[in-house]
Structures are given as C-alpha cells and as structure tokens.
C-alpha cells in the first residue's frame, strides 16, 4: 500500500491552505485528492468580488483568490490527484480513492484532513407544495451554469431564501438580462451579508419579502408560476397574504450543509454546526483525522476558511511529528445563552501557541449585547456588540494567559447589556 504522511481530501481554499501550512511546517510528503478538474473548488464559480481582504489585504474575485493559493501549492510541488473521488476512509487512516487513470487506490496516511466543503440544501429539504416542473434549482447550480458554462437558467426568476449565493445570483442574472422579480425570506431578517443586500438587491430595485415563503409552484413541464405567502412567527402561512409571480425559474438559496459523509462513515459525532467535534487544531476524536473549512462549519468568507485551515495544516504537521502531547489536560468549549454553536469544542492549552481563536454564531438577531466568555464560572472576556446577527460569524482571539487552569469549561454566550 502507498504511504503518505498527510492526505488532504479536497483542493478548495481549505485543502490548499492546509497543504501549504503543513508543508511549511516541515511536512512535505502530502497528497491532495480533488474531485474536480482543477484546484479551487467552489471559488472557481464565485467570480464576484469580496475575497482576500483579510488574507491578502486587497479585494479579489473568487478565481483570483484561489489562484493565489494554487500558485503556492504548485511552488511546493505538492502532488494532486484530480477528478478523484474518495470512496472510503477508515479509522486507521487508510484513504481509498478512485479515478480514471489509476483505478482504485489505497493510501495509508499518518494524518488525514477532511476539507470537502459544503453543499446546498435542495428542494427536497423544504417540501414546497405544488407541481414538480423543471426550473426549480439551487442558486449555486445556476451560478455554475452561468459563470462556468455561459448558460442563463431562465428569463423570469424568483429567489427563495436570502443567503449570499442567492443575492449574488440576483445581481448576476439581472446583469445578464434576466428579470429577477423578488427574493423571499421566511425569517423576519435576512441571512445574507448586509453589503450584498445593498449591492445585489437595492442597486437593481429587487424587492425583498421578509417573513414570506413560497407556498405553491405551478407548471407542467416548465415552471410557470409561484405563490408566496407571509408567515407568522411560527412560520405558518397567513391566509389572504398570497402573492403570485409568473416566473420560469425558482432559485433556492436556503442554506449550506457541511459535506460530512466521511465523518459519518467513521461513526464520529456531529456538532450543532453539522460538522465534526474538534480540538484547538481542528482534530477530531480519532487522532490524526482533522476537519477544516466549510465541512467543519459553514463560514461567511473564504478568508476565514483559509486562516482556519492554516492552523489545521500546522496542527496536522505537529501531530505527525509527534510534537503534541495528546494526553495533556483539556477543557471543553460550549455554547451558552443565545449562541448556536462554537468551534473548537475542546482545547488542550499545552498545544496552543499563544492564543485561542473561538468562532461562533448567535441563534437570532440581537441588540445591545455583551459577548461573554466564562471560564469555570469566572468571566474572562467581554465584548460589547450594539447589533449582532446569525449570518455574521463571530471570531474572537483569547490570549493563552487568560486561562488560569487547563481543565474545566469555557462557555461562550451573548448576554443583554444592562
């Protein structure tokens, strides 16, 4: 069997960043297994701006951002297997992948990083009543068709869900000549970044219907019409508030889900973020198996994915070199009041360099809050936030010194400011 120090599954921003960091930490025997024909993953179809401000201090498009990383991967001569699907991953870190050239290959790795990204929630997940004509597709699929294949998915379009991909597609489709009649969001607030609401909807006078959802679809072979209805706070449609739109396409932008099939195969638990349970270097409960990027928790920005994955890659290198004491004491990190999830879930203080980065989301929009970090009953940090929304991931660095012991529990909560 072929042996490798590190196998990275996925060559998007997470996989590439992890590979570069692991290599630079002295672990050079790396293999990247990528399902696509090129590196970069989903960034290849994200032709819009907004990438790179954190990582490169300049405004880049998705393809430009991924090229910066791909150039670094190639400089290091890190081998890549393209158009390769991982079929299996065992607890002993044997990765089985297949491709047309090599057939089925088994690789025994000392460490494995899961960097498989996420996928879109589809129509089946939300059970829209009505007929099942063609023309109901996810926003990301429409993005792939338009940006990589040059095909416009429809002429009159409605978008269900106010996630960022949906907003970005509202603008893209409008610029390409389609008419976007509106965006509906079942929640009373949007799930997209504010700057996308402005430049993708306001710029083109596309109405946003908050607390509205699609309640019916009509059409025999192709979608002809949809009905949206206002909902109450329990998401029940309010009779009499129906509106109809004649459209040939309904785009769904209703959320992203980590692609965690391999994790489930390993029998590992799934977090509230629908990813792995990990430690401070993003290692799962199985020593040597790591998870990073959107497969761990869905990020707002590729920049954040890159930063997290660097830390993961460095961690994987330290693990393979035996630089870590896996038996050293640890504390748990748990979500408290108003917090949906926290990453990481467990921290071995001894293995941290100088600070701990905590990432989390609140579970609903809140005003006048104090982000509160409570360690074994004692508040160790507070951050005042006038407004805080679920769609903006919070990222807080805590210096190692604020922890006076290595064990116990850190609770992250958002409390009312009094």
């Amino acid at each position, binding site marked *: 069997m072929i042996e490798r120090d590190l196998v990275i599954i996925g060559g998007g921003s997470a996989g590439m960043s992890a590979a570069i960091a692991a290599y630079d930490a002295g672990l050079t025997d790396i293999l990247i297994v990528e399902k696509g*024909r090129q590196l970069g993953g989903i960034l*290849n179809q994200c*032709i*819009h*701006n*907004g990438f790179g*401000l954190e990582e490169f201090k300049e*405004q*880049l*498009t*998705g*393809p*430009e951002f991924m*090229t910066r990383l791909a150039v670094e991967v190639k400089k290091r001569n890190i081998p890549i297997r393209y158009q390769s699907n991982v079929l299996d991953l065992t607890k002993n870190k044997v990765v089985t992948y297949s491709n047309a050239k090599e057939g089925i290959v088994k690789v025994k790795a000392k460490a494995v990083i899961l960097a498989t990204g996420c996928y879109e929630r589809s129509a089946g997940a939300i059970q829209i009543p009505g007929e099942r004509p063609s023309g109901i597709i996810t926003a990301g699929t429409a993005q792939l068709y*338009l*940006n*990589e*294949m*040059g095909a416009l998915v429809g002429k009159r379009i409605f978008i269900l869900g106010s996630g960022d991909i949906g907003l970005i597609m509202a603008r*893209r489709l409008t*610029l*390409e*000549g389609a008419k976007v009649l509106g965006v509906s969001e079942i929640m009373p607030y949007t799930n997209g*970044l*504010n*700057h996308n*609401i*402005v*430049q993708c909807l306001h*710029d083109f006078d596309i109405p946003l219907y908050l607390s509205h959802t699609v309640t019916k679809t009509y059409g025999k072979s192709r979608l002809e019409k949809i009905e949206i209805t206002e909902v109450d706070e329990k998401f029940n449609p309010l009779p009499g508030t129906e509106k109809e739109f004649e459209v040939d396409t309904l785009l769904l932008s209703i959320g992203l889900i980590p692609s965690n099939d391999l994790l489930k195969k390993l029998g590992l638990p799934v977090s509230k973020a629908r990813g792995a349970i990990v430690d401070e270097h993003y290692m799962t409960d199985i020593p040597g198996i790591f998870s990073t990027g959107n497969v761990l928790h869905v990020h*707002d*920005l590729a920049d954040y994915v890159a930063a997290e994955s660097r830390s993961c890659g460095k961690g994987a290198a330290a693990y393979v070199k035996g630089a870590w004491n896996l038996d050293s004491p640890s504390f748990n990190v748990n979500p408290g009041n108003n917090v949906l999830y926290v990453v990481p879930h467990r921290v071995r203080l001894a293995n941290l360099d100088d600070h701990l980065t905590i990432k989390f989301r609140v579970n609903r929009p809140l005003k006048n809050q104090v982000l509160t970090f409570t360690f074994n009953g004692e508040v160790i940090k507070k951050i005042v936030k006038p*407004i805080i929304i679920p769609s903006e991931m919070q990222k807080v660095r805590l210096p190692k010194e604020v922890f006076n012991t290595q064990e116990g529990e850190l609770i992250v909560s958002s409390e009312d400011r009094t």
Partner: protein
Amino acid sequence: MKELICIICPRGCRLKVDDNLNVTGNLCPRGIIYAKTEMTNPTRVITSTVKINSKNAVRLSVKTAQAVPKAKMFDCMRELDKVMVEAPIHIGDVVIHNICETGVDVIATKDIEE
C-alpha cells in the same frame, strides 16, 4: 443625515453621512471614500465572464479594474457580450481597454493556459 451600508468589504459597516458629507460608523478609511462617492457619483466594480476559445473552458471570468459609474453597468455588460478571447490568458491581462469610455479596463481574473 443618510444611512448607508458600506459595500467595500463583506464587513458591511453601517455608515451615517450628514449634509456636509461627514461620515461616521466606518471601521476603516475606505468607508469614508465609499460614502462620499455613493452620495455624489455612485460606482461599482463589475464582475462577469466573456467567451474564450480554449480546450478547457468556455468562459473566462473578468472584472473592471476599477469601479465604473453605476449608470453605465448595463452598457458595459453589452460590450462584454461582444468579446471572444483566446487562451492562453492570465490574471490581469486586459480584455477590453477603456470600456464604454469610462477610462477603466476590463481584465481577466483567471489563468487559462490552453
């Protein structure tokens, strides 16, 4: 007083601009420039694609190297429709000079080797 959401980066600062174009609420200096431009002559960077003759791709992603006037966005899109480029092409290569007399070039945002 007008309230704006800054679109320069994904942070989306909530800006306030008074009648004398004094800006508050920005977390970086770019917010001030954005608010002033937005109040006087709003501009946007366009990202799109053009046709490419290549073995591996049918579209090349492109952007305007700087922001263009918002009112000229659709004119620029029509110009992009007319273009066909040949591989190889590299990030930063100019695809259209001075699009729609804006003084701004359209450049490739991806490397396509063959």
